[in-house]
């Protein structure tokens, strides 16, 4: 893991000193365990502050839309697919980017680890050989990293960046035999009444802070529909109608665009599994159009093209 850090610093230092980019977007080590902060290195010296470990879950593609400078950016598999979508949607030109690929074995879920610690306060976390050593006041635990992956990472089938100019490490083996939609099928199998209850309960804790939306690299609209005030489309209260409208529309805006990077779920301060909405749409797009988001710069996304053979069964 820490070899990545050295390599990322080395690449960033070179890019900045050779004036090939104006900044390199990566992470710096967090101030609390299990967290790192997105960081822009603008000088070769600042490149030495870049960092990499299993807590780089924030999706850096979020910082790209509408940039006009020359950007170096560190991407995991999922992030690279978001970059592809942004290029396809004309949010950032490919030739302004220097993409540093970071083959990924999955990011760790800080809330899962916190739950395992049962309220004990972690002070230091260190990774070694597939283990995470967590220390706090008067305790020390040794965790198997594989058991604490973010949920989206445990079912990820694109760990390697799909687009890059240079790699920070050798490519990793992709996971095979993964069932990506077991949970979606469970929800699909419910009666409409119990499905309704399931989603109502899912979003009950929502405080409308929009962390899910703002953490998403695909939510780049200059004005989001929830922020329109003339006319105002959605109420701002915690009335279930308003909360529901926000979550449903947000998910639909991501149909055929979401890469299941998990940034939304990771950001939610009240722990809502917001991917339950977007994953269903991901499954539908795959089944209806045979399309997986962000794998190719050559193919237009299914929802901005028409083909005579497109399925029409859902058109009334």
């Amino acid at each position, binding site marked *: 893991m820490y070899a990545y850090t050295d390599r990322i610093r080395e690449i960033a230092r070179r890019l900045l000193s050779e004036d090939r980019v104006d900044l390199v977007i990566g992470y710096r080590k967090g101030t609390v365990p299990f967290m790192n*902060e997105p960081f822009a290195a603008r000088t070769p010296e600042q490149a030495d502050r870049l960092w990499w470990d299993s807590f780089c879950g924030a999706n850096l593609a979020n910082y790209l839309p509408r940039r006009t400078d020359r950007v170096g950016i560190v991407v995991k598999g999922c992030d690279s697919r978001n970059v592809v979508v942004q290029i396809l949607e004309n949010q950032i030109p490919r030739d302004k980017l220097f993409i540093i690929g970071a083959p990924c074995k999955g990011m760790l879920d800080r809330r899962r680890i916190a739950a395992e610690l049962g309220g004990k*306060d972690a002070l230091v976390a260190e990774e070694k050989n597939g283990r995470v050593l967590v220390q706090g006041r008067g305790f020390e635990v040794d965790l198997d990293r594989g058991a604490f992956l973010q949920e989206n990472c445990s079912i990820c089938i694109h760990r390697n960046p799909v687009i890059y100019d240079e790699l920070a490490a050798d490519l990793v083996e992709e996971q095979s035999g993964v069932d990506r939609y077991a949970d979606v099928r469970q929800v699909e199998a419910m009666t409409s009444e119990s499905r309704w209850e399931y989603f109502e309960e899912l979003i009950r804790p929502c405080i409308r*802070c929009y*962390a899910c939306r*703002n953490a998403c690299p695909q939510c780049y609209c200059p004005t989001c529909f929830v*922020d329109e005030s003339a006319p105002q489309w959605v109420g701002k209260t915690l009335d279930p109608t308003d909360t529901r409208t926000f979550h449903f529309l947000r998910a639909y805006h991501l149909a055929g665009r979401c890469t299941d990077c998990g940034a939304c779920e*990771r950001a939610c301060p009240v722990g809502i599994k917001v991917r339950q909405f977007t994953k269903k749409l991901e499954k539908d797009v795959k089944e209806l159009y045979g399309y997986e988001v962000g794998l190719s710069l050559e193919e237009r996304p299914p929802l901005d093209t028409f083909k005579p053979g497109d399925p029409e069964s859902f058109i009334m």
Partner: protein
Amino acid sequence: MMSDRFVSKDGLKDGIRRLMERRAVIGPVFRGQYHEFAQLAQVDELDLTFQNSRLSPKGLFHPHSDRMFTYSLAKNDPEAGILKEAPQDYSPRVAVGIRPCDARAFQLDDANFETETIKDPWWVRRREATTLVGLGCNQPCATCFCTTVGTGPFDTAGLDVLLVDLGDGYLARPVTEKGRKLLDEAGFAAAAPAEASSRAGELRKAAEQSLGKLFSTEAIAGQNTLELFNAAFWDEVQFSCINCGTCTFLCPTCWCFDIQDEVSGEKGDRLRLWDSCMFPLFTHHGSGHNPRSQKLQRVRQRFMHKLKYYQDKYHLGAACVGCGRCVSHCPVNIDIRQVAQLMSASCIC
């Protein structure tokens, strides 16, 4: 001088059960994945082993969505268009397990809602109706920095009663007359032995010692406002911010709100809703102009308001109680402790 009392752990439950017969009792309850302050249906829901609630208890006095007025728009209604105060429940209630930092935050918020000239009736009435029973923090979290910002793990300033967990029971220290009456009502009459009070003192000392002083709010107050405003470090601080409302919505001292009308058919409601200076819409003028259209301006505003403007305006210290919620839950790890260090550094040019 009101003297300390001692309550056994079972005795506390009995007393709360007694209080619940007469009034609503609110306390930390574990729901889903974290603790939240909610009205207890049963005394066993109360979990005083909690570290801190995910959301601050500010919602007790300043709910996320609050119906202030209702009105009619019916053509033939002689009272059409007249705002009528929406009915609210202001009956007496008790909040148990409030952390001293959160209670201190209510006092800092009072500076906005209850002044010599302006009294926000919703805030004031809810405050008056509520007795605050605090719980001292024997083991502050790693993200806590209450002593740095002028409060502490056993600060009684914002409380009516302070409970201290002594292991075998609680020391109950009445702080106000309201608190003393509550202890009587709950039947917590036994005087605490001197040994219990001294144990509580030791716990306090140990908790305070576990917290270092991380920055100086006085130094920030002493800075030149414009120099701070124009400091170069804001560019680096703001980079990672995604402008969500996590920090402001979880914060006990962020009180900003928006007022909106919602109309359905011939009925209307005037609502007060949490708002956030992180949102571009917060300062969007009717003209279309936005004085804080850039992320840097919004991020700077949040820290300047908490750590500088509030101090300058009210002389009550910073509008931060060091609860650490924003530190723990910011999705991109923006850490107010570090920002405050940058702001308090002697040379900021």
